[in-house]
């Protein structure tokens, strides 16, 4: 079937290095001695642990409950005993720790009771909830909870459902093999997405360097009698980026400020479709995934790996060469060196590459930018990387945003072609994290200011109330005294008529002080109330403004970025109790930010 394909600008063609790991079929990785399952494996809220040390768990049992709508449950990858729920180092470039459930397998790999679901009989809400409870997240790398993407826009009709089997990063072949070996289940998973989103068309995009995968998918689509279209797209990195694939297949360009559903498109990875089908058609939550193990190893191969398996143990299966000096998680374009060989495989781990100089030669020293513009030519988002580099270097972050820093998807094409060997993406990550940190600082300062003003207001109000109370008491006492005096006078001058006229005079003399004292608090109160109301109104306005202009690009953060954010937030939380006292006043702060 021929269809009109579109092109995205830019892109590069790095050596694919895929054949090495394609010679052998998918293998089941053996049960490791210990599983370290991080609770935070998707974008969104960190699941709450629901097990504790000493608990026995079954395979597929929930160990972390989703925290909020954008969050997905986490499950025990095998049966065994929970050793601890503790902080462990994460597969993230920061090398920071996060809460993990550590499980010692009992070797039985015993499943929790699970049954296929008749999803045709379920409401869409129930299907989405089940996917959330099954821990289904985007397996292409971003790990966005899938159920959160399965609601069509109310205003824009859903035109196309894009299924991403492009797999454009070099070395990675797990999606390729998944499509070759488990095409039918992938197609059934796509069927679930189709039923929930009701798109007009379903397009499955596969790079044209995977003809076997495309053939297998076509066969499965035909066998299941689905109207899905399998489209081979030109091999060009980063054709597998969601926005690039959407562009190639539909011609639509999704800007950073919009969701793809606003343009009537939604995109899922093939592996996500597969896990969705396992969750619905078999009742199995996500406890494992396919991982390509390649690079500086004897036997590159794809493994079905339990989530939480230490990367070092997995790498050993492929027998790394002795000169291996690190593990790259992800592909060579966007991956990162993990901080420790024992970090666990997580849902976002699609590939491990044994790092060595002969696989990835050491980089030449960084030279000054010669403005050759090669980076701008290959940028798939048509940015001007060298301009953003200039301003990132100069810490002129406002300017970096004028040059659309937050539209950068960090694909690495610019760094790939730079003749001056400038790690451009690193500069952009730095600029982004600085901008986020400053934004949070500013918000914290604003919050502190609001809290301080509110406290002042409350103190004043309390003071006024106290004064009012006191004057009331005083007035009452004065009135009482006056009444007593009047009574005494009346009693004393009983029969003495001239003094009888004193009593009406005594009452006014007692009341004036009461009124003169009582009125000021009333006016002060009104002033206070008016002031408070204006302050509250201003705060509400500021809040509304902030809500109206959300930080761009924050909804499609990668797991790594999410982690960055969480980590900065954690730092902030530690600082917060002392913040109002130690932080410079907001005025000074904003000057610094200039």
């Amino acid at each position: 079937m021929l269809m009109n394909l579109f092109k995205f600008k830019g892109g590069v063609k790095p050596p694919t290095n895929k054949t090495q790991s394609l010679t052998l079929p998918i293998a089941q990785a053996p049960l490791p001695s210990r599983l370290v399952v991080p609770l935070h494996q998707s974008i969104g809220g960190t699941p709450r642990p629901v097990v504790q040390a000493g608990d026995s768990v079954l395979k597929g049992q929930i160990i972390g409950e989703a925290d909020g709508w954008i969050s997905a449950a986490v499950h025990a990858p095998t049966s065994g005993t929970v050793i601890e729920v503790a902080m462990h180092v994460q597969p993230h470039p920061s090398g920071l720790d996060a809460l993990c459930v550590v499980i010692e397998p009992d070797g039985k790999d015993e499943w929790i009771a699970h049954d296929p679901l008749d999803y045709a009989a379920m409401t869409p809400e129930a299907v989405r909830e089940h996917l959330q409870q099954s821990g289904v997240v985007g397996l292409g790398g971003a790990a966005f909870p899938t159920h959160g993407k399965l609601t069509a826009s109310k205003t824009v009709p859903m035109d196309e459902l894009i299924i991403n089997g492009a797999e454009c990063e070099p070395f990675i072949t797990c999606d390729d093999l998944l499509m070759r070996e488990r095409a039918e289940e992938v197609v059934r998973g796509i069927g679930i997405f189709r039923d929930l989103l009701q798109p007009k068309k379903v397009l499955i995009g596969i790079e044209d360097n995977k003809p076997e995968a495309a053939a297998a998918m076509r066969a499965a689509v035909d066998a299941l009698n689905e109207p899905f279209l399998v489209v081979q797209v030109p091999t060009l990195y980063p054709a597998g980026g969601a926005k690039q694939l959407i562009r190639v297949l539909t011609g639509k360009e999704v800007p950073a400020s919009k969701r793809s559903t606003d343009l009537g498109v939604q995109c899922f990875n093939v592996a996500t479709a597969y896990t969705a089908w396992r969750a619905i058609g078999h009742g199995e939550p996500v406890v494992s995934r396919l991982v390509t193990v390649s690079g500086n190893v004897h036997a590159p191969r794809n493994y079905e790996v339990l989530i939480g398996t230490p990367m070092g143990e997995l790498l050993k299966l492929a027998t790394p060469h002795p000169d291996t000096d690190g593990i790259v998680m992800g592909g060579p374009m966007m991956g990162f060196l993990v901080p420790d060989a024992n970090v666990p495989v997580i849902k976002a781990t699609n590939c491990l590459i044994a790092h060595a100089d002969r696989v990835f030669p050491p980089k030449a020293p960084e030279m000054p930018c010669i403005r050759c513009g090669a980076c701008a030519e290959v940028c798939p988002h048509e940015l001007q990387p060298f301009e953003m580099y200039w301003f990132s270097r100069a810490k002129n972050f406002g300017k970096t945003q004028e040059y659309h820093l937050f539209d950068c998807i960090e694909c690495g094409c610019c760094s790939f072609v730079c003749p001056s060997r400038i790690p451009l993406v690193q500069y952009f990550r730095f600029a982004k994290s600085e901008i986020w940190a400053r934004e949070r600082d500013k918000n914290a300062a604003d919050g502190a200011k609001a809290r301080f003003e509110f406290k002042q207001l409350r103190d004043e109000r309390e003071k006024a109330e106290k004064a009012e109370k006191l004057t009331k008491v005083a007035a009452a006492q004065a009135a009482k005294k006056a009444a007593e005096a009047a009574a005494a006078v009346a009693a004393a001058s009983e029969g003495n008529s001239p003094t009888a006229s004193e009593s009406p005079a005594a009452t006014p003399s007692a009341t004036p002080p009461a009124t003169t004292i009582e009125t000021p608090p009333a006016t002060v109160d009104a002033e206070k109330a008016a002031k408070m109301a204006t302050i509250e109104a201003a705060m509400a306005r500021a809040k509304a403004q902030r809500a109206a202009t959300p930080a761009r690009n924050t909804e499609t953060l990668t797991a790594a970025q999410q982690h960055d954010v969480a980590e900065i937030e954690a730092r902030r939380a530690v600082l917060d109790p002392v913040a109002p006292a130690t932080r410079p006043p907001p005025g000074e702060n904003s000057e610094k930010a200039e």
Partner: protein
Amino acid sequence: MFAPAPFLLKNTSVSLVMIQVCIALIPGIAAYAWLVGPAILAQLVIATLTALLAEAVMLRIQRKPLAIFLSDGSAIVTAWLIALTFPPLAPWWLIVVGTLFAIVVAKHLYGGLGQNPFNPAMVAFAVCIVSFPALMSQWPSVGLQATLIEQINIILGLSPRIDALSGATPLDALKTSLNLGDSGINVAQLLANQDIYGNFAGRGWEWVAAGYLIGGLWLWQRKLISWHTPLAFIGAMTLISGALWLYNPAHFANPLFHLFSGGSMLGAFFIATDPVSGCTTPRGKLYFAAGAGLLTYIIRVFGGYPDGVAFAILLMNLCAPVIDLLTQPPIFGMKDKA
């Protein structure tokens, strides 16, 4: 060890870029040496050595790593462009002064590689033509028969600067003839009859320009330069020279003559394409090069200098930042808004 992604890099470097620019200059240089005189080779050597020495001293002063920056090749490209734009038999010290000014002032005092707002070679040319107008206008006469040794002796000042040297460039000769004010003068006749002119431009020089054209096309084919700059430069020059030629063919030379005379081809493919001092956006490159082409023509035909490439490029260098700012292309997903 914790070098960040991407781990795979394309096999490229500043040196590779610069070396390819030098290779692209070779056809032009070969034609130059063969048809005009081998003295250019001596000038290239003098300029290169001076540039490398000046570069080394400046790097040393700034405590920058010598090996990396000396081998980046950028000083060599500057030196070659200076040698190719100066008169081939200019005294050795003129080339040295020009090259020193280019490397020390125009390049390093502005911050070194990648930081210079002006094309260093063009700065050198402008400084020398303003400071030493006579020497910068002494071009070898047509048919000058001198061996390499004799020519080197002239450059080094060991032989007297004989009269045969005080020729003019074909462009200058044309302008002088026209300015003599003979009412019956006709450009077409001049070009056909005078010995200094060849098939379609200056004798010999036309093939040097053709050599630059070939090298430039190779650079384009290697994707080291985009089509925007040379096309806009040549297009603008063709348009203005063509319009005036059609208006008065007796007084204005045809476009072909202008494209293959003076520094047109060198300017279009090797000087206006300098990324550091030029524009970087695709539309900006068009404006930049078109402006340079126009100004080159205006200066060489109506101005006081025999050729206008250097001043045209420098003037456009001044405009480059503003042009870039105003020609930012719309980004992915934002095209309808632009």
